[in-house]
């Protein structure tokens, strides 16, 4: 048969719930589905916090998703997971295309929370995260400040990713306001340190007067920094980038990278999971029967805000 013309037509199963008995808790399972599941940043922030939460609450947590950045594969995983009826789903909002999968989960009565980037077109119960457009803006502002509003800048990341392209837009929107800033190019470092380093080296050769470079994926920073260091231009060529892995922090401390636009990824998953838990356990009843009332009892959208990491505060992030 043909697909429904609009999701309203879909028969919704009642949101699955559970009581607080330890027995119930023991066989509750909260599943996180992301993509590039083994990307260190994800492992050390999102997934670490999610696991900690699970241990604290005494419930089972699982993390699933393809090894590489592969949205269709993430969708496949979500749809396969739905069949196994987890207690709650925590989904990395990698691309608007996962909206349908999310709706399927919701229709199946599985509490579903999206984190990192929002999927407004979906019927997700809640979203926690940041707006990549803002990450772009933040980098733009900082870079403009660092180079005194004039000079050549370039930026790199993974081209074609929805959230990253938002970031690029934010960055460029800022630069638009600085007529003396010349954007010499947008580059695809394929989330690969060597490529980022190679591109940067080439850039520095092409533009000896390069003022600054912005990076948008977690491998951009180390790569750019490496090439800038090797060209002996650490400090003179300004670098702003995303994420705050140990490597990034070290480079900030060394003064090679000037600013990191970090996300509070731990909060995404910790509170995301908590939202799921509260929905399942109806921790906060807002009405006689929230399900019938057609309301859900967790925040709709949460902006966790950004971290601004610079030489000043980097020491607080470096682990002893």
């Amino acid at each position, binding site marked *: 048969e043909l697909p429904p013309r609009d999701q309203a037509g879909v028969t919704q199963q009642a949101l699955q719930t559970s009581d607080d008995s330890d027995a119930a808790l023991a066989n509750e399972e909260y599943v996180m589905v992301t993509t590039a599941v083994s990307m260190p940043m994800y492992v050390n922030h999102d997934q670490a916090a999610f696991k900690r939460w699970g241990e604290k609450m005494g419930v089972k947590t699982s993390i699933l998703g393809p090894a590489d950045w592969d949205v269709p594969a993430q*969708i496949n995983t979500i749809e396969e997971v739905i*069949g*196994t009826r987890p207690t709650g789903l925590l989904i990395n909002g990698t691309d608007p295309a996962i909206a349908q999968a999310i709706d399927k989960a919701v229709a199946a009565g599985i509490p579903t929370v999206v984190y990192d980037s929002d999927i407004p*077109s979906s019927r997700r119960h809640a979203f926690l995260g940041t707006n990549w457009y803002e990450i772009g803006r933040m980098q733009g502002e900082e870079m403009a400040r660092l180079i005194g509003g004039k000079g050549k800048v370039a930026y790199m990341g993974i081209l*074609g990713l929805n959230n990253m392209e938002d970031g690029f837009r934010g960055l460029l929107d800022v630069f638009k306001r600085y007529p003396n800033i010349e954007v010499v190019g947008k580059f695809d470092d394929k989330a690969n340190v060597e490529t980022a380093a190679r591109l940067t080296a080439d850039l520095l050769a092409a533009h000896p007067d390069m003022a600054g470079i912005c990076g948008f994926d977690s491998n951009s920073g180390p790569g750019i920094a490496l090439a800038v260091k090797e060209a002996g231009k650490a400090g003179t060529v300004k670098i702003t980038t995303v994420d705050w892995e140990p490597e990034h922090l070290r480079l900030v401390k060394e003064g090679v990278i000037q600013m990191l636009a970090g996300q509070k990824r731990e909060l995404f998953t910790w509170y995301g999971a908590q939202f799921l838990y509260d929905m399942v356990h109806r921790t906060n009843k807002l009405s006689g029967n929230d399900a019938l009332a057609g309301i859900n009892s967790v925040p709709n959208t949460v902006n966790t805000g950004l971290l601004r990491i610079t030489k000043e505060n980097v020491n607080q992030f470096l682990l002893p």
Partner: protein
Amino acid sequence: MLNQILRDRVYTLTLTTLLLCIVSAAVFPATFPTFENFRQLLLNLSIDAIVAVGMMLLLISGVFDLSVGSVVAFAGGLSAHLMVFYNVPVPVAILAGLGSAVLIGWINGYLIAYQGINPLIQTLAMMGIVRGGALMVAGAGIQNLPYWYNAIGQSKLLGVQMPVWYMGLVVAAFTFLVNRTVFFRRYYYIGGNEQAAELSGIRVRRMKLYAFILSATLAGVAGMLLTSRLGAALSTLGRGMELRVITAVILGGASLTGGVGKIPGALLGALFMGLVSNIMVIARVSGYWQEIILGLILIIAVWIDLALQRRSAVRQGLPRKSVNTPSPEGVGIEK
């Protein structure tokens, strides 16, 4: 006779696959052997399988194509672009998308078969070019595709989503054609011994050209199905698909040296890989364990079915393989 069978990858792999199913059904009785799960499983591998059929044909004739993944993204992206930004009617947009795929296949085929450019370099270069094109047309992704376009991939038949049926159709059709038409039989000769094929009056170059066009077209079809299934076109679709598909096809009995392989093998290979990842989802394996275990299972599977083949080969007393180091290719080619 049993030996005959055991020497044919299609059968040995079927055995291995069944084995895997039985085991996991025993371990996860509640979640694995359910209609939903298999429906989903098949849906998820249908796209790869369709591309794999084309790839199988290429490998039978001794070549391969790394650009299929990019073609999936480009063809889908192009028609989405036309429909959304230029309101081109659905059928026209689809034709345009498929047309672009045909063109890409033609260029690959022409440069490889007639200009003698190395297939790996040619298709790798094309993979980059077309990926660039995909970024051009799909940019950060295109949503809100026309309803009727989405209907292609999202409607269901007997509770199973269409792509699965299309896959079945493609596999069945090509299995039949390759077994029963002179035209497709020729590919085995080309892969078996290109010179001898040429001297037997087979137009090797032209046939290769066709093969590339065909596989690109199937990739195009896959692109349509994937985008309509997602209801969106992403420029990153089909990334890494080429390697996945080639692996599936080789698992399914093809060889990089050409001349061997059967169409159902393509489906089987894809099915096997789909099963493995499905089981890992069900078993909640993830993180680096996922990659490690996937790798191990792959090796073990191939090893098992080599063992099967070797044992039957030994019983059949095939020439001691020491000379050309034992290879699945060596045996079980006669169909």
